[in-house]
C-alpha cells in the first residue's frame, strides 16, 4: 500500500496503470520477448509438472498420502470431464486437458499477487526505482500466451480432423454443410472456415479478456489509496470464481473441440 502511494507520488494514475500493463521486454519489433510472461509461465508450468511428477513417481496403489490424494482428485476431475464429453480412444486429450487446466489455473492465480508486491521486492533487492521496473506477473493477461495455447489446440483440431476423416473427408466437411445443395458450397465453405477459425480465437480471447480486465480492475483499485483495502478484498474474493472458472472453461472447450474433430458427420 505504501508502495502504491509512493508510486502514485511520481506517476499519475493513468501512467501507473499503463506502467503495470507493460511487459518486461527484450528485443526489437516482432523478435522481442516478454521475459515476465515467459519466465512466470514456464516457472508455474514447472511447479505443476514437478509436483505431479513427484506424485507419479511415488504413486502407490495402496493407501495414498495427502499430496497423492489431492493430485488424484485433480486427475479424476479432469478424467471425468474428458470421459463425459469425449467417447473415443485418445491418449493425448486427457493429459492435454490436465496440463491446460492446472497450468492455466496456476497462471490465473498470479492475479492474487498484489500488483505492486513484485516490483517493490525487485526494487528492494536491486535498488532500481520502481517506475523503471516492468513486471506483469499474470501470464494469461498476455495475448501471446493465450494465442499460443489456442494455437496448439487449433493445430490438434486440424490434425485429428484429418487423421480421423482423411484430407478429403475434412475438406468435404468444410464445404458440404450446413447446406446440402452444390450451388451453396462456396457459402458453406466460408461459414465453416469462419467457424473453424473462431474456435481458437474465442478460446484465447475469452481467457485473455477475462484476466486482463480483472488485472485492470486490480490496478484501478490499487490507485484508491487506503480505501483499496476492502475493495481489493472483495475483488480478490470474486476471483475465487473467475480464476478456476476460466481455467475450467478453457479445458472444457478444448475437450469439446477435439471431440468434435473426432466426430464423423
Amino acid at each position: 500500500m505504501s508502495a502504491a502511494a509512493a508510486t502514485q507520488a511520481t506517476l499519475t494514475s493513468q501512467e501507473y496503470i499503463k506502467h503495470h500493463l507493460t511487459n518486461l521486454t527484450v528485443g526489437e519489433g516482432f523478435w522481442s520477448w516478454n521475459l515476465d510472461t515467459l519466465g512466470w509461465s514456464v516457472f508455474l508450468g514447472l511447479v505443476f509438472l514437478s509436483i505431479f511428477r513427484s506424485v507419479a513417481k511415488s504413486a502407490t496403489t495402496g493407501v495414498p498420502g495427502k499430496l497423492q490424494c489431492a493430485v488424484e482428485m485433480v486427475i479424476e476431475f479432469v478424467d471425468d470431464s474428458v470421459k463425459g464429453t469425449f467417447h473415443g480412444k485418445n491418449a493425448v486429450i486427457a493429459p492435454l486437458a490436465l496440463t491446460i487446466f492446472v497450468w492455466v489455473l496456476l497462471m490465473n492465480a498470479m492475479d492474487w499477487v498484489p500488483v505492486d508486491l513484485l516490483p517493490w521486492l525487485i526494487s528492494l533487492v536491486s535498488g532500481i526505482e520502481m517506475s523503471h521496473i516492468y513486471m506483469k506477473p499474470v501470464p494469461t493477461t498476455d495475448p501471446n500466451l493465450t494465442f499460443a495455447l489456442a494455437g496448439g489446440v487449433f493445430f490438434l483440431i486440424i490434425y485429428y480432423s484429418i487423421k480421423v476423416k482423411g484430407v478429403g473427408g475434412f475438406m468435404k466437411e468444410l464445404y458440404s454443410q450446413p447446406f446440402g445443395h452444390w450451388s451453396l458450397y462456396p457459402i458453406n465453405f466460408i461459414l465453416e472456415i469462419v467457424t473453424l477459425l473462431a474456435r481458437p480465437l474465442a478460446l484465447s480471447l475469452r481467457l485473455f479478456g477475462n484476466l486482463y480486465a480483472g488485472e485492470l480492475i486490480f490496478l484501478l483499485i490499487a490507485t484508491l489509496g487506503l480505501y483499496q483495502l476492502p475493495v481489493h478484498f472483495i475483488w480478490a474474493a470474486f476471483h475465487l470464481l473467475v480464476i478456476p472458472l476460466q481455467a475450467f472453461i478453457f479445458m472444457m472447450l478444448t475437450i469439446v473441440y477435439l471431440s468434435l474433430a473426432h466426430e464423423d458427420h
Partner: protein
Amino acid sequence: MNINATIIGQLIAFVVFVIFCMKFVWPPIMAAIEARQATIADGLAASDRAAKDLELAQEKATAQLKEAKVQAASIVDAAKKHEAKIIEEAAGKAQAEKEKILASGHAEIETERNRAKEELRQQVAILAVAGAEKILERSIDAAVHSDILDKLIAEL
C-alpha cells in the same frame, strides 16, 4: 495487445509440457488409480462373499443345532423308555423271586410242621403207652400191641 516472438516461446513451452505430462505424469498416476479401484472392487466383492458365507454358515449352524436338539430329545426319550423297561423287568424279577422265596418258605414250614406233627404223634404214642402201662401196671409188649398203637397214632 502486441504479438511478438513470445508466442513462439509459449507454444514450445506448451508442447513440451503437454508431452511431458502425457509421458511421465498421466500414465503412472492413472495406473495407480485404476489398480487401487480394482483392489477396492475386489475387496468389496470379497466382503460381500464373506457376508453371504457367514449367513449360510449361520443357517447351517441353526439347522444343525435344531437337528441336535431333536436327536438329544429322542435319545432322552429312548433312555427313559429303557429305564422304565429295566425298572419293570427288575420289578417283575423281584416279584418272581419274592414268590419263589415265599413258596419255598411255605413248603419248608409245611415240612417242618409235618415232621413236628409226626414226632408229636410218636411221642404221644409213647406217652400213651407209658400211661397205659401205668394204668395196667404192666408192660405192654409193643410188638404184640402194635396194631392198637398204630390205630391210636392214626387217630391222633
